[in-house]
């Protein structure tokens, strides 16, 4: 998880290190092997076609030359050819890609199209053209691969330069009358060097493998010179008599490829941490930015008997002693409440207060690595703590999420997604499910419902999607509707309409709701009971009515109210504003739970739902925070 400190330490980038070490070793071999090993690599001896043994680790070839020594000595020529080809492609490609922007409009367009067209072909096609013109040989192989690499560099440079050319500093330079070539050299090229270097490193290996492939088919290095490709080419005819001869050059080519891949992965993750190959960025726990620190008293799971006493007889959802942890961090600390049938309970608090985590714990949708414990967590007769049957979870709990656009699968039509639960868990036939859904959409004032079902999510507005998502959550007539910041991503006029729909559903269907928002005004409008959360703990329990009237007593709640313009307009004025002057309500992330001002004002069970008051179980220091 993101909260795991070991993940942060992974920034060391092991693949970059490993790749650099492998390629560095190859350079060392290229420098050292020719002077030391040329003798055994090139002197003809009578020890022809020896198998691998003590004298010759990988045996000898048909002329009695040491196979391993030849492969090591060949490193120099192989690396030099690849370096020459890459350098040439780099210089020519970057020059073309940059200069193209100095050309007049039509010429520039034509050149850009030509570059695009050239990139569409495998690089080997262009290399074969050059090889055909120049004939087989070391020089022609270098030129062929160099030319084949030019379009790649040209296109990357041209694309990058085009994005930089619109930047303010380039425009300024142009307005100041700085000549074009100078702008390129001074302002454009230095600013695009990063991606070019990434391409340079991958291009070097590609050149190396491609030149070796030309040598391998006989179009590159010719005898008596030898690179790895040539060695493999010479080994091939005797492969049946002496298969071990191919091992050394093969190994060198594979090691180079792996080194380059590691280096490339490493460099890419330096440039963009999201593309890290081996460790995909873990998802952050929702609302887990700050949580009760390790200083929080350990939560002792209460004996089952005590939990029964907490639950109200007609409580539909019972949450008792809910604690959620991610690794050693506590996101939600001993939270208890119940929701009676037909009631709406609001959870309010700043981001990071743990309110969404509570909702996801109830829904059983906590992210990987986040663990919930509770003495009791039940929806009526459905125990949510164990592994409740998916069918009951899906049909008895409806969920509306925060961001309607991210919530829908962009690749699937709305009809498929909205009717999925009904079709999967209630066995509703497809047609029937679509008809029901169309009617539900019309009820919630979505225009052209039939057409919407055939559309993809990106074709609808956020407000429309959110209403569709509410309608979908209601198709199974769930006992509990969880709404996790359902209006946050919407603009104000749409918010009002969506809130009206929640109220209508509650009135018409009597659905109990757990409504989460950071907007205390919205919560006050809708909810019967409101829990104010801070740092993963409940700091205040109040009612929607008190919030609307502004008659709340708790200083933190009053501070939240004061920070909401809508609530101030609604009449919650004097006391809240005065309190703000003393202590600002906005807590920077990571601050300890809001405790100090609470001393001496122990909250009482304000809730008509009979919220459990378990202060007696707690150590005195934590008492005020509950």
């Amino acid at each position, binding site marked *: 998880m993101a909260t795991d400190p070991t993940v942060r330490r992974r920034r060391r980038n092991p693949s970059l290190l490993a790749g650099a070490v492998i390629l560095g070793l190859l350079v060392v071999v290229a420098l050292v092997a020719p002077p030391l090993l040329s003798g055994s690599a090139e002197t003809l001896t009578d020890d022809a076609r020896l198998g691998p043994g003590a004298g010759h680790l990988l045996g000898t070839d048909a002329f009695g030359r040491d196979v391993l020594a030849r492969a090591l000595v060949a490193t120099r020529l192989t690396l030099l050819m690849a370096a020459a080809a890459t350098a040439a492609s780099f210089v020519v490609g970057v020059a073309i890609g940059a200069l193209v922007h100095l050309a007049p409009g039509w010429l520039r367009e034509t050149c850009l199209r030509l570059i*695009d067209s*050239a990139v569409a*072909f495998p690089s080997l096609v262009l290399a074969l053209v050059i090889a055909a013109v120049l004939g087989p040989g070391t020089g022609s192989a270098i030129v062929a691969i160099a030319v084949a690499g030019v379009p790649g560099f040209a296109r990357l440079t041209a694309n990058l330069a085009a994005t930089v050319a619109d930047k303010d500093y380039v425009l300024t330079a142009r307005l100041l009358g700085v000549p074009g070539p100078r702008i390129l050299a001074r302002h454009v090229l230095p600013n695009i060097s990063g991606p070019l270097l990434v391409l340079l490193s991958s291009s070097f290996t590609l050149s190396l493998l491609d030149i070796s492939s030309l040598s391998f088919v006989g179009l590159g290095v010719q005898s008596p010179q030898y690179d790895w490709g040539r060695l493999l080419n010479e080994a091939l005819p005797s492969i049946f008599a002496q298969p071990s001869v191919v091992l050394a050059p093969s190994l060198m080519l594979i090691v180079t490829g792996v080194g380059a891949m590691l280096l490339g992965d490493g460099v890419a993750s330096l440039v963009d941490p999201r593309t890290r190959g081996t460790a995909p960025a873990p998802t952050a726990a929702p609302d887990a930015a700050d949580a009760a620190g390790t200083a929080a008293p350990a939560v002792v799971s209460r004996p089952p008997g005590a939990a029964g006493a907490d639950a109200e007889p007609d409580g539909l959802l019972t949450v008792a002693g809910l604690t959620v942890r991610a690794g050693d961090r506590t996101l939600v600390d001993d939270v208890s409440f119940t929701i009676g049938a037909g009631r709406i309970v609001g959870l309010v608090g700043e981001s990071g207060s743990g309110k969404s985590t509570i909702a996801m714990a109830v829904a059983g949708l906590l992210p990987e690595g986040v663990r919930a414990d509770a003495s009791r967590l039940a929806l009526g007769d459905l125990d949510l703590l164990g592994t409740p049957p998916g069918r009951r979870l899906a049909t008895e709990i409806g969920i509306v999420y925060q961001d309607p656009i991210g919530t829908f*699968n962009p690749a699937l039509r709305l009809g498929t997604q909205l009717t999925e639960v009904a079709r999967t868990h209630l066995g509703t036939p497809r047609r029937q499910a679509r008809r029901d859904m169309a009617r539900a959409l019309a009820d919630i004032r979505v225009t052209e419902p039939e057409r919407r079902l055939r559309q993809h999510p990106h074709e609808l507005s956020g407000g429309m999607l959110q209403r569709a998502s509410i309608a979908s959550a209601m198709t199974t007539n769930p006992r509990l509707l969880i709404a996790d910041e359902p209006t946050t991503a919407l603009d104000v006029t749409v918010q009002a309409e969506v809130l009206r729909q929640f109220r209508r559903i509650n009135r018409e269907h009597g659905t109990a709701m757990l409504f989460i928002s950071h907007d205390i005004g919205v919560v006050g409008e809708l909810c019967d009971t409101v829990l104010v959360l801070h740092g993963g703990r409940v700091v205040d329990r109040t009612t929607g009515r008190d919030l609307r009237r502004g008659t709340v007593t708790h200083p933190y709640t009053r501070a939240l109210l004061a920070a909401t313009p809508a609530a101030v307009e609604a009449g919650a004025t004097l006391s809240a504003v005065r309190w703000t002057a003393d202590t600002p309500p906005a807590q920077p992330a990571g601050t300890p739970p809001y405790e100090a001002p609470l001393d001496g004002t122990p909250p009482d069970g304000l809730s008509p739902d009979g919220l459990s008051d378990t202060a007696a179980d707690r150590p005195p220091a934590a008492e005020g925070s509950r």
Partner: protein
Amino acid sequence: MSAGPSAATGRLPVAAVRRAPGLRLGGGWAGFAVRRAGGLLMSMLLLVVVTFLIVPLLPGDPARAIAGTNSSPATLAAIRERLGLDEPMTTRFVHYLGDITSGRLGTSFRFDTPVADIVSTRLPYTVQLVIPAVLLSLLVAVPLGMAVGVLTRDGRRRRLGVAFGTIAGLLASAPVYVVATLLVVLFSISLGLLPSGGATTPSALVLPITALCIGPAFAIARVVRQETASVLAQDYMRTARGHRLGTVRLHLRHALPNLVTSVLTLSGLVLTSLLGGTIILENVFTYPGLGTEVVQAIIYKDYPVIQGIILVVGMLALLVNLLVDVVLGIVDPRTLDGGRRGH
């Protein structure tokens, strides 16, 4: 979730891919066809010009380059006559175009037969390697990459993740001719299971196709795995989990369609490079396809054959690109407007 455009994942924020009103060429397939036809014509023209330039670019006297330094003046004159070297460049280009459009592709110096005949006997052999290799690559890469992506999600099973990363990285970066050589050593020579060359029996195709698709399969699998991890972290996957579906339906119905675009985009690149790999690979197996023929033609300076084969291989690459774009357009209609995304 991160909302920024990412070239690596090929996903764009909704606002960026939503259809803009009054797009210049119109949206949908019509605009796609116009744009794509333009690009295709350009690429074909480039291919024709570049292959034409092979002969004029030959260093020194092309006739001497072809016939060798010790050839008689009569031979040189005959070659000049046959290639039309004395004619102006434009006339020669027109002749070249005529050769291509008539479908004859000129006449081979070595065999004195139409190049079209040589290409048409060799092409089926190459295609018979390329198509199975392409299909096999995708059939291995997508399920494998997805399975590993699902199993290692959110940093689970770290050891499996590292093992896959290492092995797939190794296999993806090994050059095709080395893989082929080692496969021959292992399966033909050490184990004696499969033929090491030719194309006479179906079993002779096993090693070349395997060698050809190992690299692309694991290169694509690495990307599929990475994409799976990022798709699984999306909000809509949480929604789908909230629907409490079975594992298979959850991943195939909800995750897979979101992988297809980026995987196909990458596959286009990998598969065109697979064409290049075929040319080299055929030489390991002395396989009677276009690859062995073009290498021989270069060594023996048989320019019409070189030109013909490069033309055909280039066209195949364009065809693969076009196919990928069309399939992308069918699977993800949003790509029709902006052309191919990513890379």
